[in-house]
């Protein structure tokens, strides 16, 4: 079977960064309180933010940029264990440039799907972890994320460091199949492989 890790390690332009900002020498994730709405938010790692901004800004300057492909996982040196596979496409439902990527430098609410708002990964994971008031309750999906990532939730302590693989996807790039593919097609290829090679850890529900 095709080795997903071999592809991840060789895909051009990929960056592997820590996802969360943690206290020095510990696995406790830093948080910040938003007084105006009573939210407590998990903090993204500054390197993750810098890298995402850099990749998105460089990408949207090129016409062949399709978006950002990402894998949240455990980087154990010899292999990356995928926990969640997703994408943030360049084109939005209503606009040529998705609201998820637009103005990325100041767009912490959406931030290429890793934003602080509800319906975005960090916001929803924070909601499931700290159970603050929202226009709806915490999503079950992110309660499962919290159970998978944290050994305790308040304060949030990771079971092990969590990394994010960020891949800017351009026309003509090759997926694990060895075929040139669009961003949505490659996302499905990766989930199909991860569902079998790392099925016990993968948090994607579909494609298993």
């Amino acid at each position, binding site marked *: 079977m095709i080795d997903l890790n071999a592809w991840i390690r060789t895909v051009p332009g990929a960056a592997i960064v820590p996802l969360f900002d943690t206290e020095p020498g510990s696995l406790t994730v830093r948080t910040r309180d938003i007084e105006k709405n009573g939210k407590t938010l998990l903090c993204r790692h500054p390197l993750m933010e810098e890298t995402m901004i850099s990749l998105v800004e460089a990408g949207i300057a090129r016409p062949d940029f399709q978006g950002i492909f990402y894998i949240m996982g455990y980087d154990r040196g010899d292999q990356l264990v995928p926990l969640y596979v997703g994408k943030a496409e360049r084109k939005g439902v209503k606009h040529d440039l998705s609201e998820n990527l637009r103005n990325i430098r100041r767009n912490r609410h959406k931030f290429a799907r890793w934003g602080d708002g509800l319906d975005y990964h960090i916001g929803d994971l924070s909601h499931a972890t700290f159970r603050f008031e929202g226009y709806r309750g915490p999503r079950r999906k992110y309660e499962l994320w919290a159970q998978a990532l944290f050994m305790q939730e308040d304060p949030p302590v990771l079971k092990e460091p969590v990394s994010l693989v960020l891949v800017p996807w351009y026309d003509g790039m090759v997926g694990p*199949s060895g075929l040139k593919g*669009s961003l949505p097609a490659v996302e499905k290829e990766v989930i*199909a*492989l991860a569902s079998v090679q790392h099925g016990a850890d993968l948090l994607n529900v579909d494609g298993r």
Partner: protein
Amino acid sequence: MTPIPDTERKRDLLNVWLALHAPDRTVHLLPEGVSFSYEKAMEQIYEHVMCREVSEEVIYILIAATADGEVPVYVGRSRDVCSRWSTHLVGIGSGDGVYATWQSMLLTDSMKTRWSLSLMVVPGSQIEFPPIPGFPTTIGAVEYQLVSLMADAYPSMTLNHEGRLR
């Protein structure tokens, strides 16, 4: 339209997988150019063996016989494909919500079928090989390989919105 240079290779992979899994697993729902009929399509499904296979999850593919050949337009999976397709066919007839796209692609303004429509149903235990060489054969992985291939092989024809480049 973003160019996808491996379109032909992906069409070939789809054609091979579909052709070798199709025998005895395909039901013709409606011919081309006839008025859409939920009842007639469901009659065809009920006559097929698939309704007796509810104990096992199946992968199903809706296929349109176009002038350019047979094109897979939607893939899904279910333990109760008859119930699932009852829902899909009601949706195609009404055009409500997500089915607006299904209706406009599959039917003319006068609600006639644009193409002959068939449904292929493959139980998980009968998947013989993966659509993409070197990939897994679990039912979920095969479903996603088909969605992936269809997204690039027939980008304007796929009804699986999750595999479609915007």
